Structure formats: C-alpha cells, structure tokens
C-alpha cells in the first residue's frame, strides 16, 4: 500500500502532492488499509459472534430466536462456568508469577558474557520456536499415564513419595504413580507448567530488551556508589525494569488466558470438568453440546476482562516510565 501511494506521489500532480504532505490527509490514508482490514476480518465476525450470543442458535442451524442476555445469565449460573473462570484466573496468575520470576533471573544472567552463551540462549528460545499444538502433544507424551518420563525419573531418584505428599495425592506411590493429567490438582499444575514453559522464552527476551534500555550512565553511577548487588537490584534495576515487566506480563496474560490448544490437547478439560478454562468451556458448550448461542456468550466473557487488564497495564507502564 505504501508503495502504491509512493507511486502516486511520484506521478506528481502538485495539488495531490501538496495534500499528501498534510498530516490530516496522509495520516488517515496510511492508517486506513490496516483499519479496513481489521474491521472486515475481525469486526464482522465479532459482530456476528455478539449477535449469536444473544440468540438460542444451535450447531445445526445458523440463526436463532433473540433471547437478550439469557445466555450470559445461563452461563453465569452454571457451576462449570464459574469453575472455568476460576481456573482461567488461577492458571493465568500462577503462570505470570512463574514467568516473571524466571525471566528476571534468567535475563539478569544472560546479559553477562560467558562461554557457551550462544548455545544456552538457543536452548532457552527453543520452546518459543515450537508450534504450540505440536509441542503440547510432546508434553502429553511426557505426562503419559504409563510411560511418563517424569514419573520414571522420580521413581529412580526415589522422589515419588515426596511429590505425592507435596500434592496430597491419596494412595499414590510407585505402583500408582502420580497421574499428571488424571488428578485435578496435578492436572492444573501440569497446565501451569506447560504454559509457563512456553512463555518464559518470550518474557526473557523482553526482559533483556528492557535491561538493555537502561541507560549506561545509570549503571556507571551505581558502580561508583559501590552499592551492593541486592540494593542495586531493588533500587535501580527493578524500578527501571518495571514498565518492561508490565509489558511482558500483559502479553503473558493474553497468551495464557486466550489459549485454547494447551488445555484442549492436554486434558480436554478433565478429569471431569476440573481443568476447564473459559476457552475450552466455550468450545464444549458451543461445539460439543451444540449450544452455539451460549458458547458464544462464554467466549465473549473474556474479551472485556482482557481489555480492562490491557488498559490498566498500559496505563501503569506509562506511569512507571514517566516517574
């Protein structure tokens, strides 16, 4: 689009050219293709999804009777929905906590120079390079009910008992190894691990970016002051990294809360519905159970929530930076 516009300009009728020099003309002109695209490809279907959420449409037909907010009310009353909402929140926050701590530690180490750094960095970006749906199948194999490598290793290290006790799994031991995808607590844990695992590389990169944006004068000043490492971390690094950490958290939240593949592939919401999250529950209700309207309503629940979080985050990121 830019190229085409450039061609026009070069053709060079002075009046048009003059217009193109004006911000109020050029600005909208440059923005409009993107906006148009987004409106057509996202706006139209989103509008349709909102319409669906207010009808009693079912899977085998396209439209339904208008029912207002009944679907939202029905979803809200459903214990499974509340459970899914709670799981979404738990998973999202737990993952962010793990990711932020890991990324802070890792980025701190990775800005230093050391032998083998290139290779280590390669290992760390690996999870990010793997397609989510495929690598989750890889995790399915890791957590396999019979051939789980985690359980084999724990057993050889005589740690099974410790792990079973830590999770309070009844009757678990060498002959009944922990079922990472078959016990509600363990399955939640497994989902959190996989989500954190795949997001850490991304967060590390953002954190490194954030560190490298700390002006060198600040570093120098701290060195002259002879501040201890801990003090430096607390008073200098952390405040300066706050905005960037917020951005990493923001993306982490979006990646985790809006993800469908990990839970769908790992547990399919089970055992019973104990690991359903909003995305998979919307799928279960909308596709499996055929209640398109209610499914659409459930999937829309997340949207305002994410918008609120995003605006809040961006606001704080801005403030943190200004101060």
């Amino acid at each position: 689009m830019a190229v085409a516009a450039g061609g026009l300009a070069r053709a060079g009728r002075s009046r048009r050219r003059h217009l193109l020099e004006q911000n109020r003309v050029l600005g909208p002109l440059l923005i409009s293709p993107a906006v148009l695209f987004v409106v057509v490809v996202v706006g139209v279907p989103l509008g349709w999804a909102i319409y669906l959420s207010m009808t009693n449409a079912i899977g085998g037909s396209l439209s339904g009777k208008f029912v207002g907010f009944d679907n939202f009310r029905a979803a809200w009353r459903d214990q499974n929905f509340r459970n899914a909402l709670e799981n979404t929140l738990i998973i999202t926050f737990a993952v962010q906590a793990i990711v932020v701590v890991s990324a802070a530690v890792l980025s701190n180490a990775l800005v230093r120079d050391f032998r083998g750094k290139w290779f280590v960095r390669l290992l760390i970006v690996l999870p990010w390079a793997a397609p989510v749906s495929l690598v989750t199948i890889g995790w399915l194999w890791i957590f396999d009910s019979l051939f789980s490598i985690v359980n084999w290793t724990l057993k050889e290290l005589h740690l099974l008992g410790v792990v079973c006790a830590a999770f309070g799994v009844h009757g678990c031991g060498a002959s009944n190894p922990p079922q990472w995808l078959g016990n509600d607590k363990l399955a939640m844990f497994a989902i959190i691990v996989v989500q954190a695992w795949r997001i850490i590389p991304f967060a590390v990169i953002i954190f490194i970016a954030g560190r490298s944006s700390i002006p060198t004068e600040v570093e120098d000043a701290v060195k002259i002051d002879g501040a201890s490492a801990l003090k430096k971390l607390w008073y200098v690094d952390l405040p300066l990294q706050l905005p960037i950490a917020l951005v990493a958290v923001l993306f982490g939240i979006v990646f985790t809360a809006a993800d469908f593949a990990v839970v769908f592939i790992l547990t399919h919401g089970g055992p019973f519905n104990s690991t359903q999250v909003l995305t998979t529950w919307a799928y279960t209700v909308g596709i499996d159970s055929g209640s398109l309207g209610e499914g659409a309503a459930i999937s829309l629940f997340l949207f305002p929530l994410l918008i609120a979080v995003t605006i809040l985050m961006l606001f704080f990121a801005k403030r943190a930076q200004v101060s």
Partner: protein
Amino acid sequence: MTAWLAGTWRRSSTWVIVGPFAIVLAFPFYWALTTTFKHDLDLYNQKSIPYTYNDASGHAHWDFWNYMTFHHVSFLFKHTEYPTWLLNTAIVGVAVVAITLVLALPAGYALARLSGAWGQMAGVGIFLVYLVPPTLLFLPLSRLIAELNLQDTLWAMILVYPSFTVPFATWLLMGFFKTIPQELEDAALVDGCSRLKALWRIVFPVSVPGILTVVIFAFSLCVNEFIYAFTFTSSTSERTISAGVPNELIRGDVFFWQSLMAAVLIPSIPLALLYNSFLDRFIKGFTGGAFR
C-alpha cells in the same frame, strides 16, 4: 590468582543460574529426540530404560545406536504429506508476514507521527483487536472464507492470520517509530523529499530492528495457530504442520509417538537457530518499540 578464582566463580555462577533453566526448557526437545528413534517394542516396554535405547526385552546396551531406528522419521516423510505441510507453513508464514508489514508499517508510522493526541488512543484501540477471543470466531470466519471461495486453500489462512498479527505489529511499530529522531526526517524534507519518500528512504531503513521484531513475532504466531488452520482446511495437501500433524499422526486409538516427536523437532530446531541468531537485533527492536 584470586582474580582468576573470582573470574571462574563469576563464570560458573552464571552457569549455576542458567543451567537448570536451560535444562528444563530444553528437556521436552531432548525427550522428543530420544523418542523419535525408538522401536515400538522398546518404547512400549515398561522395563526399558527410557533415556536410552533398549532391545525388545527391555535391556539397555552400550552400543545403543544399534537399537535405534529411522523408520518413524522416514514414515513421516514417505507416508504422510509432512513435507507439504512444512512448505505450506512456510508459505503462509511468509505471506502473512508480508501482508502484516504492508499494512502495519504505514499505520504504525501514521499513529506515531501524524496523528496527534488520538494516535495513542487509536494505537491502544488497534491493539485491543488482538484480544478478540478466537475460540468461536472460527465459525463466523469460516463463513467469510466460504463467501470468498477460499475454503480449503492456503489463502484462507493468509487472509485471516493478519487479523491477529496486524494489531500487534502496528502497536509495536508505532512505539518504534517514536524512537526515531524527527530531525532525520526533517533533514530529508528540507532536501525536497516528499513525506512518503522520506518515509521510504529514511525512516524504514533505520527501522530494520523494529521490522525484524515484527517479522519474527508474526511468523511465530502463524506457526502456532491451530483452530483456524484446522477448520479452514480439510484436504491433507492444504494443511499446515500445526493442523496436519495432530490430524494424521493421531489416529484415534493410536498415537504415532515417534513420528509425532520428529514432527515437533524438525521445524523447531531451525526456527530456534534462526530466532537465536536474530535475537540481538530483535531485542533492539523491542527496546525501541514497546515502551515509548
């Protein structure tokens, strides 16, 4: 001597921190690699030592390479359309990245430079589109795809994927363009360049790190996408890896674990190498972009 000791400690202390993380993060790939070359009778044997290769009765041997098999890798290439899926993934990725840049570069620039106070708001607004939940959006979108007669073609994905790459890319590039000194452009304008020319000649070239960030990010989002890829295509030959592999290598009652693991590794490792070698520039792109 003490300096040497201190240096050694500094080096190894980094390893003490980084090592465990690297092991945990890379472990699934190591495990996938090990699994890929196993015989069925080794894989499905509880007596086998999983970290190495065993004979049919579950005994490990030092010459483990004699107990490996390439059968499942060759199965992937000879009896499934895996190479086609790889190629499809690459085609979709490259096309989407191109579309993303064409749409997001001008938009990001405009929001950064040409659109006063509401630019910031509009930037956030565009970003919010990224948050639209995809779970059930695939239904209305498949209608759109059908209307355009693109069902079961790569074009379906090429058209739809920018819906989540463009918002992010625009937002990122907006931030990035703000870091480029206005003076650079002004100089060009004084020289008699038009604004568009200045954009093309001056601004874009110095934005390479930002653009690279967008490229990598958009590409990885495309490779990850699953629902659209699955529902918009149904011919084996039009699948991308994330839809084709689960569909063809999980046949209801049987998971072809070894081939599945090979299918995970084959795209991941080159992509990781690629990302890693661009990482420094990527970091620069992000530093400039997201936070101003």
